[in-house]
């Protein structure tokens, strides 16, 4: 089989899962009306499949900041952070992230994906070990692969299993990096951070926590799981993304280890790409300010999450263990999930469809992402529609 034939085979497998030209992946959004509504084809749909957790995509403060940055600094930096791409805004945002997490150091990356790629591949290398949760995001897997370190997985959210695998490493624990996530993107569950930290201290390892989905969502000021658990000072490196609660694109890493600065000189995903555009940086800085003082947004978000999670649970859907902004209905077969996804769209609700092997345990997911801008009536409509479709997909 040549290279192109291999791609053809993959395309055939994909089409067998999504017959009739169903465009669940990469669906064209024609117009965006607000943080909660858009047009798909000729339908005005409710957006329940975005990561816009605080609903800030149209925040006037962010839009104005982005406009001003374009007028003042142009559309792009056209260069790497290592060369001409470190403007005042980039450096200011790094200081603001470090301040937010009460850390001495912060680095801004061009995407959240690159934040994990760049941090992991900068911290470990061949001969070192990364011990990662089995349900880790692809950016974590890819960062580990790029690093050349030995990759060992532990069972999802199972600290005892992690300890067992750490013990097997013997004296290699000294050069082992443990990686976990604040909120996992598939089922919306949270890492058992206190248990992980207890073990990592016992073995003397370094811990990286990815707060991509938990930033802005957990904790009084929105730092994430570190704030919710009061364990900020126990985590060595925190990464995150701008593309969820902060409504732009980019990523960061903060730490109290001064060695973080060295990543600027060794991390290819940091060096060999252009830095974020001035507008992106400006809107992110404005959004971070809103996030920090956004306890009212988090309050509304959690009200919405609890409303939908409770209603779906009462209807009989199998859900992830923790209520939160990521609420996934777990279905046994891809056919059930596809039917559910299509039926929801026919009821003008857009959600995410996740099929094996992307979904855990070979299951399929219809995943909702709730945000603070959804009204109680919108959430009620989504819950009612799921209830209406329950018998259809479970027939």
């Amino acid at each position, binding site marked *: 089989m040549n290279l192109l034939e291999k791609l053809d085979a993959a395309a055939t497998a994909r089409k067998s899962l999504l017959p009739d030209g169903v465009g669940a992946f990469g669906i064209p959004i024609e117009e965006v009306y607000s943080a909660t509504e858009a047009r798909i084809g000729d339908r005005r749909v409710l957006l329940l499949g975005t990561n816009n957790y605080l609903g800030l995509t149209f925040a006037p403060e962010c839009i104005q900041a982005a406009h001003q940055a374009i007028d003042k600094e142009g559309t792009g930096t056209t260069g790497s952070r290592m060369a001409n791409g470190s403007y005042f805004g980039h450096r200011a945002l790094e200081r603001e992230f470090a301040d937010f997490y009460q850390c001495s150091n912060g680095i801004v990356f061009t995407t959240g994906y690159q934040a994990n790629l760049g941090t992991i591949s900068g911290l470990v290398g061949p001969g070192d*070990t990364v011990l990662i949760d*089995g349900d880790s995001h692809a950016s974590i897997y890819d960062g*580990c*692969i790029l690093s*050349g*370190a*030995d*990759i*060992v*997985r532990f*069972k999802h959210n199972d600290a005892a299993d992690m300890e*067992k*695998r750490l013990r*097997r*490493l013997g004296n290699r624990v000294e050069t082992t990096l443990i990686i976990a996530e604040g909120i996992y993107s598939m089922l919306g569950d949270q890492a058992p951070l206190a248990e992980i930290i207890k073990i990592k201290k016992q073995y003397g390892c370094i811990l990286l926590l990815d707060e991509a989905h938990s930033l802005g969502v957990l904790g009084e000021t929105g730092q994430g799981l570190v704030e919710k658990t009061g364990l900020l000072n126990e985590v060595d490196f925190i990464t995150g993304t701008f593309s969820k609660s902060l409504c732009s694109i980019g990523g960061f890493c903060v730490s109290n280890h001064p060695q973080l600065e060295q990543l600027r000189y060794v991390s290819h995903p940091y060096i060999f790409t252009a830095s974020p555009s001035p507008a992106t940086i400006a809107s992110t800085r404005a959004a971070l300010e809103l996030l920090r003082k956004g306890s009212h947004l988090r309050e509304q978000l959690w009200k919405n999450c609890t409303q939908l999670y409770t209603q779906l649970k009462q209807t009989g859907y199998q859900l992830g263990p923790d209520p939160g902004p990521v609420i996934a209905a777990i279905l046994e077969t891809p056919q059930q999930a596809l039917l559910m996804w299509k039926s929801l769209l026919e009821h003008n609700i857009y959600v995410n469809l996740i099929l*094996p*092997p992307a979904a*855990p345990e*070979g299951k399929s997911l219809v995943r909702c992402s709730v945000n603070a801008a959804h009204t109680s009536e919108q959430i009620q409509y989504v819950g009612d529609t799921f209830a209406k479709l329950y018998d259809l997909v479970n027939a």
Partner: protein
Amino acid sequence: MSETDYNQIVQLLCDRLTSLSKVPEVSIAPETNLITQLSIDSIKLLNLIMEIEDTFDISIPINALTDIQTVGELAALVHKIKSAS
């Protein structure tokens, strides 16, 4: 570890792969290709590796699997790691 140990690993892998394979009619042997003949998806393979790690109390880095294509090659990797531990 001895040749006997290697054969035991092969037997154990064949037993587990029989239950995981999407192609039940394929008789599993050391030369059986994990992907092209058994259609084992990546997640199932990674979960199988965790099981093997627990069975033999060893660590198998998943990047060591890059060159593994057949049941026999996987058994040889497990045997090598176990022998060195």
